[in-house]
């Protein structure tokens, strides 16, 4: 059994691989994501994921909503008010001379502009993966690349991995009996089949702006840190890295993100912790409670009263 929490240099070796490969991962630079959703489509195509609804959600232009059993890449569209451009900033306004623009009646200092944040989310392939740790059948396993994969022919559909994931990634597939792998837990495999053949995962291959970058995690961490530093030096003070620290609650992610706002704005937890960090303590409390029940039940039989 491997370690349950904390920094860990090589998860594949920790999981028992004799010949672990360099750990692979994603670096998703949201500052250059254009929201084209090519990654979502490429993922669906390559992995033969069934269609899971074409509803218009109405809250934004994002209609695939969230990561799930049949959405392994998800591009979030965040429409948010941005501070009005400072006077003399050179930001152009649309020439509309004949009609009054909405908000023109308001004093200029209260007007707001809008900005779009786009972010392509994916399974984090955590260093300490709660989904993998709680899986009762071993259907989830750590690959030689340090990633986390579900074997759909072993999965029992017990659903335990679903509430275990601190990022809300993995999900049991719903649908009628004609749907592939219905009742089975599904998530991003980091294209395990492509990795084995020396290929790039489908989403990274399809990304037209190189917002999704694939490679050795060590190198990606350096690249991400450099990119964040570059953006900050260009005046983008809100640029920050997510999932990059091996000191965080999941021991660091196999998928890093460069974000332009707080994680929760993108639907990410601000301080995720793998639940197994506290598992030894949980078993201890349950053991004490069990001994208490045994002792208490024995005590009820002592004494004279029947």
């Amino acid at each position, binding site marked *: 059994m491997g370690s349950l929490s904390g920094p860990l240099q090589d998860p594949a070796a920790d999981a028992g691989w004799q010949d672990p490969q360099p750990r692979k991962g994603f670096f998703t630079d949201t500052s250059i994501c254009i929201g084209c959703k090519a990654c979502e489509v490429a993922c669906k195509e390559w992995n033969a994921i069934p269609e899971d609804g074409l509803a218009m959600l109405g809250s934004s232009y994002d209609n695939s909503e969230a990561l799930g059993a049949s959405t392994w890449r998800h591009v979030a569209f965040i429409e948010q008010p941005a501070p009005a451009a400072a006077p003399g900033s050179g930001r152009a306004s649309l020439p509309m001379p004949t009609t009054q623009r909405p908000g023109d009646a308001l004093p200029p200092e209260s007007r707001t502009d809008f900005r779009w944040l786009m972010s392509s989310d994916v399974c984090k392939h955590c260093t300490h993966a709660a989904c993998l740790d709680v*899986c009762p059948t071993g259907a989830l396993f750590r690959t030689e690349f340090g990633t986390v994969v579900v074997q759909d022919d072993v999965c029992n559909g017990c659903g335990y991995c679903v509430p275990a994931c601190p990022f809300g990634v993995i999900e049991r597939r719903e649908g009628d009996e004609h749907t592939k792998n219905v009742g089975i837990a599904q998530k991003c495999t980091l294209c395990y089949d492509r990795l084995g053949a020396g290929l790039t995962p489908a989403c990274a291959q399809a990304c037209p702006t190189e917002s999704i970058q694939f490679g050795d995690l060590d190198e990606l961490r350096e690249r991400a840190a450099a990119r964040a530093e570059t953006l900050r030096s260009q005046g983008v003070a809100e640029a920050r890295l997510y999932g990059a620290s091996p000191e965080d609650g999941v021991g660091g992610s196999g998928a890093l993100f460069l974000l332009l706002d707080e994680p929760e704005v993108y639907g990410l937890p601000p301080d995720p912790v793998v639940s197994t*960090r506290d598992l030894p303590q*949980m078993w201890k409390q349950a053991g004490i409670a069990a001994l208490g029940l*045994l002792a208490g*039940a024995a005590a*009820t039989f002592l004494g004279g009263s029947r």
Partner: protein
Amino acid sequence: MVPDATFTSYYGRPVVKPSPWEADIPAYLFLGGLAGGSALLGAGGDLTGRPALRRVGRLASMGAITVSFAALVHDLGKPSRFVNMLRVAKPTSPMSMGTWLLSVFGPLAALAGTAEAVDAMRDSLPPSLQGPARLLIRLSRPAGIAGAIVAPAVASYTAVLLADTATPTWNEARNELPYVFVGSAAAASGGLAMMLTPGDQAGPARRLAVGGALTDLAAAHVMETRLGMVADPLHTGAPGQLMRASKTLTTLGAVGTLLAGRTRLGSVLSGACLVAGSVCTRFGIFHAGQESARDPRYTVVPQRERIAQGRSAGA
């Protein structure tokens, strides 16, 4: 601690996913507790010469574990999947540990329970079956005692099953949940045995019921006061109603047991209250956790507070 009034999320969508579990799972939690507590009463009744308590304990234990097994199989979808659960044994997976506990406890409880049923109809058995019946009845004591040794773990591991998740209310309650669950198990099994056992043999059942009810109420109180904002789902909506019902029923049952537990009517009514209270506790805690997963507030706000307090998650 007053939570941040403002918090942001992605269009109000959940951050973590609620479990896909349905009523099978809270029923399974309740029945596991009932089976564990009943096995203890059955073994105790056997060892202290209370045959009626022994019979009720063993039969209740067999019945409850059989139905809980059926609930688990129903959740999985088909029986072969239960066998698939036994392909590995993983201490990091409470579900795996629980499956193994069930696989050890289930046959022991079934053997002891079947022996009681065979014993009751022994005279009507044909002569050819008298031998096997005698053997079965002789085996029932070691089986019952072995089952009773495993039983407390059957009653308590389900607390770890819920706590070892990212579901905010379940995970935050990790220190108190085992005590709530064993208390609830003791109250339910004591209550059921009180209902079905003649009063002169039900003394241990009454004491177990009252002790369990007090443990349940005290641990639940500590849990709800310590949890802060993630305890909100335990107080509001349908889960809140279930939790209030569970407290009322458990208190009524405990007081009734103390005041009228020796009368037939008193023990039946008090026992029924305790069983119902335990059902409400399991369903209430289950649904409160589901609610806490559906609302991103319960994931984001405590994590924000943790960051604000500078407590590093990994430290």
